[in-house]
């Protein structure tokens, strides 16, 4: 079996702070990504996924632990790795005062491309990303979707083997988001580009080959979305009651039906097999105490709750 395109072992990272070592943003992460995968880091704000992105993109240097990208040890071969990866930042790394073409040209020069070859690749990418007509315009007039497309064009100029994207869907309307995804899938399938991205969107994570769930700087679980959902038994029932009664209801449900109900954001979540049979019994058992009940197949959000005991959207400090 070939070496994975990304191999992370025992990686930790603390942001430097004036008073000694800062908060640990990543705690001994072990992870590998295979060549050709579309792989995502899913986690709420503050989970460490952006830190991990910055390290993999060579923006931050890893402190403790080992990272190998494309079979190369990161600290020793950083320039070689940089030549072979493309990095798409959440806030596009574009110069707003320059035109689309000028932005691409500068990027090409930074990767050692120039002259006819650069012009040719620029034209091809502007065409592919439907920016040809406005290539002579300054970026400050571009919409968020166009800026993102240009940012991706920039990162493809040097034909990277792996593309890293930080929250690529942020600020895009649904149409632009769909276009972005068809482009990424196309690159992945036809050009064999490995794609690594961070996201906090469940529907986005659902489309990936595999995802790594991150929480408070720790790796919670890595698997395919379907497999992760399968680890939850059967169905998820969500029960709402009046605010004051929620916690006593939770205790009573646990006493009567067992399982591990969790109270999050005013909703009681309960993973259970054959939810459709359970709901009538539940409503019968607590007449008048339940306001609403819903039944669903587990989502990635339920997976997150299952493994962390926390709601995904809980406020957890900075990103």
């Amino acid at each position, binding site marked *: 079996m070939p070496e994975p395109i990304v191999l992370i072992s025992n990686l930790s990272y603390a942001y430097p702070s004036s008073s000694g070592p800062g908060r640990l943003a990543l705690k001994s992460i072990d992870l590998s990504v295979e060549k050709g995968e579309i792989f995502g880091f899913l986690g709420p704000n503050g989970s460490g996924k952006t830190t991990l992105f910055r390290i993999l*993109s*060579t*923006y931050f240097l890893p402190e403790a632990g080992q990272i190998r990208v494309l079979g190369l040890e990161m600290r020793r071969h950083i*320039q*070689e790795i*940089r*030549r072979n990866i493309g*990095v798409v*930042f959440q*806030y*596009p*790394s*574009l*110069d707003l*005062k*320059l035109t689309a073409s*000028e932005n691409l*040209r*500068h*990027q090409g*020069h*930074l*990767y*050692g491309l*120039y002259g006819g070859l650069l012009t040719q690749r620029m034209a091809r990418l502007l065409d592919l990303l439907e920016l040809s007509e406005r290539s002579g315009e*300054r970026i400050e007039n571009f919409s968020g979707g166009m800026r993102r497309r240009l940012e991706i064009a*920039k990162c493809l100029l040097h034909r990277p083997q792996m593309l890293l994207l930080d929250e690529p869907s942020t600020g895009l309307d649904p149409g632009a988001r769909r276009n972005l995804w068809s482009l990424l899938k196309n690159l992945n399938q036809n050009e064999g580009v490995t794609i690594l991205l961070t996201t906090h969107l469940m529907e986005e994570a659902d489309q990936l080959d595999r995802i790594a769930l991150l929480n408070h700087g720790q790796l919670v679980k890595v698997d395919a979305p379907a497999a992760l959902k399968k680890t939850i038994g059967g169905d998820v029932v969500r029960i709402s009651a009046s605010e004051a009664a929620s916690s006593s209801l939770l205790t009573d449900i646990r006493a009567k039906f067992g399982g591990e109900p969790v109270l999050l954001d005013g909703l009681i979540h309960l993973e259970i097999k054959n939810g459709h049979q359970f709901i009538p019994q539940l409503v019968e058992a607590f007449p008048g105490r339940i306001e609403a009940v819903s039944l669903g197949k587990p989502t990635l959000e339920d997976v997150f709750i299952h493994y962390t005991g926390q709601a995904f959207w809980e406020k957890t400090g900075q990103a």
Partner: protein
Amino acid sequence: MRTYFLAVYTLWQREVVRFFRQKSRVIGAVAPPLVFWFLIGSGLDSSFHVAPSSGGLDYFRFFFPGTVLLIVLFTSIFSTISIIEDRREGFLQSVLVAPIPRSSLVLGDTLGGTTIAMLQGAAFMLLSPAAGIHFTPYSFALTVLFLFLTSFSLTALGFILAWQLDSVQGFHAIMNLLLMPMWLLSGALFPVEGSPLWLHRMMQVNPLTYGIDGLRHGFYMTGTQHSLRLFPLSDCLAAVCLFGAATFVGALWVSGRR
């Protein structure tokens, strides 16, 4: 090697092009010093008496090199300010993950800022006949050399400061607490001779004093105001080269740190 200079060239070009696309920056760096020159010159001209040997030097002429230096200071320092915001959500992000040595980033950015500062300083120098300053080819070349050296040093100094700061506000504080006093104590506004001893000492260790003195060597070469030049030309040149080398090495050093 070729790719190294391609990176330097492209970063230099980007600095210069984006500068000219921001009209407020073009005007902002020249207009305030011009107003200073006119207002301070008008106000102080009548009460300004330097050594009699200076032969009727008026304040407009005295303050002219200082105004050029102020333009250079504003332009070169503010050209580096974009580093602060660019790092979080702008162009700099992609430069930092590009396969280029950090030194090419420092060199490209510094030369870009230097070019802009020199062009702004040179634009103001078009007014020199109005201040009674005339050039020979040699004195002009000497002036441009000092213009280059001071622009380069101050841009590199701006790079060192901007690289380590997280907010533009912090930069303004440093501008007011460090850079403006450096300019005030360079002999730009008042002559070094005749000032109290402690001030005299501070001015002697201020690298900008040598920058101003060097500019005066060029500006006054054809006049009679020799007494205003404190140091021999070679000393000025050595001091300003040293300042440039030190700030550039400092910029290289900080750029490797984050």
